[in-house]
Structures are given as structure tokens and as C-alpha cells.
């Protein structure tokens, strides 16, 4: 049964409560004033005053996870799906260190989360006391900013600053480390929540440096082989509508990064699919042969460019990004535009619409035809289900296509890391932003299930599926218990190839097929029994003939978590795949087929 009656109830925010509060009460009340509905966490000694304050209020719901990594991933998933900051609460020492992978994941993908960690009492800091760890120090390289609270009275202002920093500019995780004595219920002070915050050292670009917009439009008018390349920044900044408007106005082909999928409708014919390491043939060929690349909220990551020295040498680059440090970091920007994706795209559209625009329409039409030719030659086959079993086995891609079909392409899909992640990215057409949630930057196995919890809590009525593999799912499988406690009906789609598929693929391709530590030698659990022991539904699929009926059943069980364990062809590789250290037109298209001689 769905156990969400507690949730979805909108409490009128208690803005008027200015009574004296302890540090712990001030912390929770500040979260409430920031609009926090849920927080994910795990109690422990240094955080117990805070947990007592949570018990005594009704505004912020606490979700008890089974491991702190799960708490941070859940907060991250919530943030990615809603656009609102996610919050996690952990205790000191091991609680804090367990949160580190979650923080690094959020940092690499620039998601707005606030992680509150209990700390030992102020007078014990630095004495190697029980469950003490230097959280500020250990998290420093993987947070946007962090605060060590030094006086209880500072808590409201620090929370205000933390949310401001986490959500503005290029978003990112913020840590608040709170020594236990500063949350003492015996010490109360007058509570004031600052209305606004002014930090002289933090002024992220908001309106955007649009002085270069005219130059950008001049360049757009000369383009014959243009590509729009957009990334996670467009999704983070809710600039999808502007992106679509731009692409439609110009009739330029669009590709999205792994983090940017859904910003442009995946089923639109103008969409070339994902680009990069496992991008489509047509997207990578278009990037390589372009004469203009318009990069928006994307950072020319090494999984995109392959060898930067050979990257799209014939193209001028317009680079729009909110982070000045991302511009010209890897690839020189001919026209750098620093500002938020939404503001910059709006300014660009305004300039385009105000001109008597002269595009090279016949060249662009030729270019689009060329892309179609590439697509026809080596594009992904989105009708694999019609082929039936392959050598008696189910292809992992077929499972994703079946999921797409049964969910009408409308589900939230979270993912872990590996082959299944790439198959999901390639074969589920994401038509909406925030629909696809995965750890792109850090590549964190174990992200899928806990992040799905955050998504499901935010959208209790929506279908949330976690596309995973038998390797990744075991990294945070303890959260199955959390899902039972809170009645989260997530659909776990386990592409079970009984191997660490992506590792195995690399071993096949680069290590002479020596499968060093990438198989389990018959030690995998019975996932059906496992799911059932956690109180959920398990469905096993071993034959192609059963796949679609099982998927239908899985998706139709609206109130239950379903663990769909599908045995897939263990020999399947992800293609295309860029050849390491070369240009983007050097792709493996199959085990024997490649684009170069």
C-alpha cells in the first residue's frame, strides 16, 4: 500500500513563529522557511538534538534511509526531478564520511543540495574524539561551499546562505557542519530569519553577459553546418522551452549530452540523439564535421570531445555557460557568453527575432539531409523488439524499449552506472527535462535506487523506474527497506548480465577478453527472493517471449515496488563507442565494425 498520506499535505508555512529557539529548532525552522518538505537522513550521537527537534514539529518530514550515501543520493534525485534543493542530514564521523560519495556525485553534476552533518561538541573538535572527523576538510574539494557553525545564533543566516549558494549560479552541494553543543535544547535565543542575503564575495551572473549576442547571431547567419549541443545546464536552469524555440526557429540539428537529455524532445526528428563516448553515429559525425557549434550549458567534458586537439577543428564555437571557468577550459570559445542558459537564450532569441534573419537555408537543408543519411546508415535501431530473441537471448536494449513502450515514454528514469545506463540513455526517448536522472559526471554506481526514492517522494503519482544492473543495484540495495517503510512503488528494471558489463566490454575490447574480476562465479543472490524478503514484488524474466507481459505487469502494479530481474545477453556491447584518444568520427559501430581503417 502506498504510505504517502503523510506527504503531499501542504502546511501553511509558519513564518510568524519568532519565539526563542534552540540551535536545533532554529535549524529545522530555517529549513521550513526555505520550503523544505522532506529531508533524508540517518541519526547518530552528534545529530540527536536535531532529531529531537524534528520529532517536535510537523513541517519537515524526515525519511530514514539505510545508509547515508542513500540519503544524499535521495536528496540529489529529489533536487534533479523538482529543481528544488534537496536536503540530507547525517551524524558526525562515519555518518559524514558515508555522505561523501553522494556529495561528490552532486558536485560533478552541479545539483543543488544541502547536507547537514552533526559534529562533535566544539570543545572536542581536534581531539580525535569518538565519531569525530573533519567534515569541512574532507568535503572541501567536492562542495560548492561549506560552513562550520561557530555560534548557535548564526544558524539561521548560515542556512539562508547555504540555500542561496546551492541554488544560484552554477548550482552545487553545500555542507553545514553543526557541533552538537550548538544545538543544545537548553540554550535558546531569539530567532530571526534573514529576508535576503548579501554576500560581497558571491555574485553569480544572473542576467548574463549578453554583449556578445550580436556577434553570435552574425556567426549563426554564416553557418552552413551548424549543431546545437546542449547539456545539463539547460535542464538545471529550466531553459528547455527557450532551447526548443531556438532550434525550431533556426532549423538547426540538436544533440544533448548525457546530462542534457530531455531538454530537447528525444522523439523529435530534429534531435540527433546523445553525443560523445556512446553517442549516436549521426551526432558524433555532425559534431566532427560542423562549421558552427552552439554549446549551451555544456562543458566539453572528455567523454564528449575525445581528444580535444582533434575536436571539431572546422567549427567556430559559441559557448554559453553560467560558470566562467567552464568557458574556454577545454575548448577555446570563439564567442564566450557567460550567463544563465535561460537569460542568454532569451537574449539570443530576441536578437534573432528582431533581425531580418538571413540563414543559409539551402546549405542547412543539405546538412540536415546529410545527417539523415548518417542516421539511416548507422543510427540506432529503435524497433529491436520486433526482431524477437537474438540467439535465444534478450538484448538489454530490448528491455529498455519495452519499458519505454509500457510507460508511454512518460516515466521518470533513474539509472546507475555502466552498460544499462548507456542503453537507457540511448533507447528511452526523453521528451521532457528532469525525466532522466543519472550520475553523469562522477559515474556513481549505487545512485539509481536512492535517487529514485527522492523522485518518487516528490512525484508520488508518477511512474519512477530505476534502470540498473546486478552490479550497481547491490551497491545501495539496503534502500529496499526504506522503500517499504515509506511505500515507494519504484520499478527496478535490472538488466542482469551476470557481469560488470561495461568493465567486461572494455576487457573484451582492450584487454584481450581477460575478464579480471568482472564476473561473480555463481554468487549472485536470487533477486526475486531478495525483493520478497524486503516485502516487495519480484518478477524474473529469462525468455524474450515473457518480456513484454512481465514489463506490463511490473508497470501496472502501481502501489508496489517491483523488482524486475531480466536475464539479458551477457555478450552485448554498447555501441557506438569512440576510439580512445582520437577524433569524434572514430567510432566502433560493432564488435567488428568501425568507422576508420
Amino acid at each position: 500500500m502506498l504510505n504517502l498520506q503523510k506527504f503531499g499535505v501542504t502546511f501553511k508555512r509558519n513564518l510568524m513563529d519568532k519565539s526563542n529557539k534552540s540551535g536545533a529548532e532554529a535549524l529545522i525552522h530555517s529549513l521550513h522557511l526555505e520550503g523544505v518538505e522532506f529531508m533524508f537522513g540517518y541519526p547518530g550521537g552528534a545529530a540527536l538534538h536535531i532529531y529531537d527537534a524534528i520529532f517536535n514539529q510537523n513541517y519537515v518530514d524526515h525519511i530514514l534511509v539505510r545508509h547515508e550515501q542513500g540519503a544524499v543520493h535521495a536528496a540529489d534525485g529529489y533536487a534533479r526531478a523538482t529543481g528544488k534543493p534537496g536536503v540530507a542530514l547525517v551524524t558526525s564521523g562515519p555518518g559524514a564520511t558515508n555522505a561523501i560519495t553522494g556529495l561528490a556525485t552532486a558536485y560533478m553534476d552541479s545539483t543543488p543540495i544541502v547536507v547537514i552533518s552533526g559534529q562533535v561538541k566544539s570543545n572536542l573538535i581536534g581531539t580525535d574524539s569518538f565519531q569525530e572527523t573533519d567534515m569541512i576538510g574532507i568535503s572541501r574539494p567536492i562542495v560548492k561551499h561549506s560552513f562550520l557553525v561557530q555560534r548557535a545564533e548564526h544558524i539561521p543566516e548560515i542556512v539562508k546562505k547555504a540555500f542561496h549558494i546551492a541554488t544560484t549560479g552554477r548550482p552545487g552541494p553545500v555542507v553545514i557542519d553543526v557541533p552538537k553543543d550548538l544545538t543544545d535544547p537548553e540554550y535558546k535565543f531569539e530567532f530571526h530569519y534573514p529576508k535576503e542575503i548579501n554576500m560581497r564575495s558571491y555574485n553569480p551572473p544572473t542576467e548574463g553577459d549578453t554583449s556578445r549576442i550580436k556577434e553570435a547571431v552574425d556567426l549563426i547567419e554564416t553557418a552552413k553546418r551548424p549543431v546545437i549541443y546542449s547539456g545539463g545546464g539547460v535542464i538545471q536552469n529550466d531553459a528547455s522551452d527557450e532551447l526548443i524555440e531556438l532550434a525550431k526557429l533556426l532549423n538547426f540539428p540538436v544533440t544533448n549530452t548525457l546530462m542534457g537529455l530531455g531538454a530537447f524532445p528525444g522523439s523529435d526528428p530534429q534531435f540527433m540523439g546523445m553525443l560523445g563516448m556512446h553517442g549516436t553515429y549521426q551526432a558524433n559525425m555532425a559534431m566532427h564535421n560542423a562549421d558552427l557549434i552552439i554549446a549551451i550549458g555544456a562543458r566539453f567534458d572528455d567523454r564528449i570531445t575525445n581528444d580535444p586537439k582533434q575536436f571539431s577543428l572546422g567549427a567556430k564555437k559559441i559557448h554559453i555557460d553560467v560558470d566562467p571557468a567552464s568557458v574556454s577550459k577545454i575548448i577555446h570559445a570563439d564567442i564566450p557568453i557567460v550567463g544563465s542558459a535561460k537569460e542568454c537564450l532569451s537574449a539570443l532569441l530576441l536578437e534573432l527575432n528582431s533581425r531580418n534573419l538571413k540563414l543559409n537555408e539551402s546549405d542547412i537543408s543539405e546538412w540536415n539531409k546529410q545527417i539523415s543519411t548518417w542516421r539511416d546508415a548507422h543510427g540506432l535501431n529503435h524497433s529491436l523488439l520486433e526482431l524477437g530473441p537474438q540467439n535465444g537471448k534478450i538484448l538489454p536494449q530490448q528491455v529498455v524499449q519495452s519499458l519505454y513502450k509500457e510507460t508511454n515514454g512518460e516515466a521518470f528514469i533513474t539509472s546507475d552506472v555502466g552498460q544499462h545506463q548507456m542503453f537507457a540513455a540511448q533507447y528511452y526517448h526523453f521528451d521532457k527535462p528532469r525525466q532522466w536522472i543519472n550520475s553523469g559526471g562522477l559515474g556513481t554506481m549505487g545512485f539509481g535506487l536512492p535517487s529514485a526514492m527522492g523522485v518518487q517522494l516528490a512525484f508520488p503519482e508518477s511512474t519512477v523506474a530505476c534502470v540498473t544492473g546486478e552490479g550497481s543495484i547491490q551497491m545501495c540495495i539496503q534502500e529496499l527497506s526504506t522503500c517499504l517503510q515509506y511505500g515507494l512503488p519504484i520499478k527496478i528494471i535490472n538488466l542482469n548480465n551476470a557481469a560488470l558489463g561495461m568493465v567486461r566490454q572494455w576487457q573484451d575490447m582492450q584487454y584481450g577478453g581477460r575478464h579480471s574480476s568482472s564476473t561473480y562465479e555463481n554468487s549472485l543472490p536470487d533477486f526475486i527472493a531478495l525483493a520478497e524478503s524486503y516485502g516487495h514484488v519480484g518478477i524474473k524474466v529469462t525468455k524474450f517471449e515473457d518480456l513484454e507481459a512481465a514489463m506490463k505487469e511490473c508497470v501496472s502494479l502501481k502501489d508496489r515496488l517491483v523488482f524486475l530481474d531480466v536475464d539479458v545477453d551477457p555478450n552485448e556491447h554498447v555501441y557506438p563507442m569512440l576510439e580512445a584518444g582520437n577524433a569524434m568520427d572514430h567510432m566502433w559501430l560493432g564488435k567488428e565494425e568501425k568507422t576508420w581503417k
Partner: protein
Amino acid sequence: MKRVIALLMENQPGALSRVVGLFSQRGYNIETLVVAPTTDPTLSRLTMSTEGDEKVVEQITKQLDKLIDVVLVTNLSESEFVERELMLIKFRKDSFPENAFQDSNVVSKNDEVINVQVVGTSSELDALITEIKGSNPIEVVRSGSLGISSDKNTLSIEN
């Protein structure tokens, strides 16, 4: 080429470790680093010299600017600037190279050792060390470079 970067940051715990950590985290090299509070006690001024081409230094300044505790950053070597470093040198009295120094350089002296102080550009100090090598100085301490622009520009939150 040697570059000198100066920045103002919040004078609070943790700020320095963020700046220094950034260098190791992103693989940049720090040659010298000097930090002290300014006349405004809420701010510290940090001067660092580093080797790197223009592109690397541009990345360094951008990444420093992103740190929340950093208020202002400037690459002093982009225009004319004055660079100075202080050096203290200890000699045994019997091998003190008198001709290399003036009396005003001597800051302490006893029967065994003489300490001198010298101020100059880093390259002047490098040259001096080479020059006095034969006198076997027993200890050399350098402060690291400080920098200030030669024109009317100032690194200040006032303007």
C-alpha cells in the same frame, strides 16, 4: 613564465585551505604564497606566484574567483607591477662576505653568527644566493613574493 596573482579573501577559518586546496586539486603549482590580514580586519590579502602559460593562469584566476570566500582576484603580471621579496640569511661570523652587504643589511650579530636581511625581486634574490654561495650561508629564509600594481589600480573592495 612566472606569474603573480593577488587576491582578497574573507579573513575566516577555512578560507586559506580552500585556496591552497584548489591548487593541489587542480594540479596547479604554487611557487610562493604569502598571506596576511589587511587594514580591513575582515579581509586577508594573499599573493602567490606560480609558473604556467596564459591559459593555465586564466583557469587559475577563474577557479579562485569561484571560491565563495574569495572576494577579488587579479593577475598582477597582466600589467606593470612591483614585486618584492624579503630574504634573511645566516652566516658564520668567520665566513661572512662583508663586501656583499652594507651595515644596514645586518639585523643581528654575535660572536658566532651574523644575520642579514635583503629585499629585492625574486630574481635579484636568486642572483644574490648564487653570488654568496662560496661563503657557505648556514640558513636562508625567503618570504615569498608580494606584489602591487604600478598604476593607480588597487585591489580593494572600495572601488
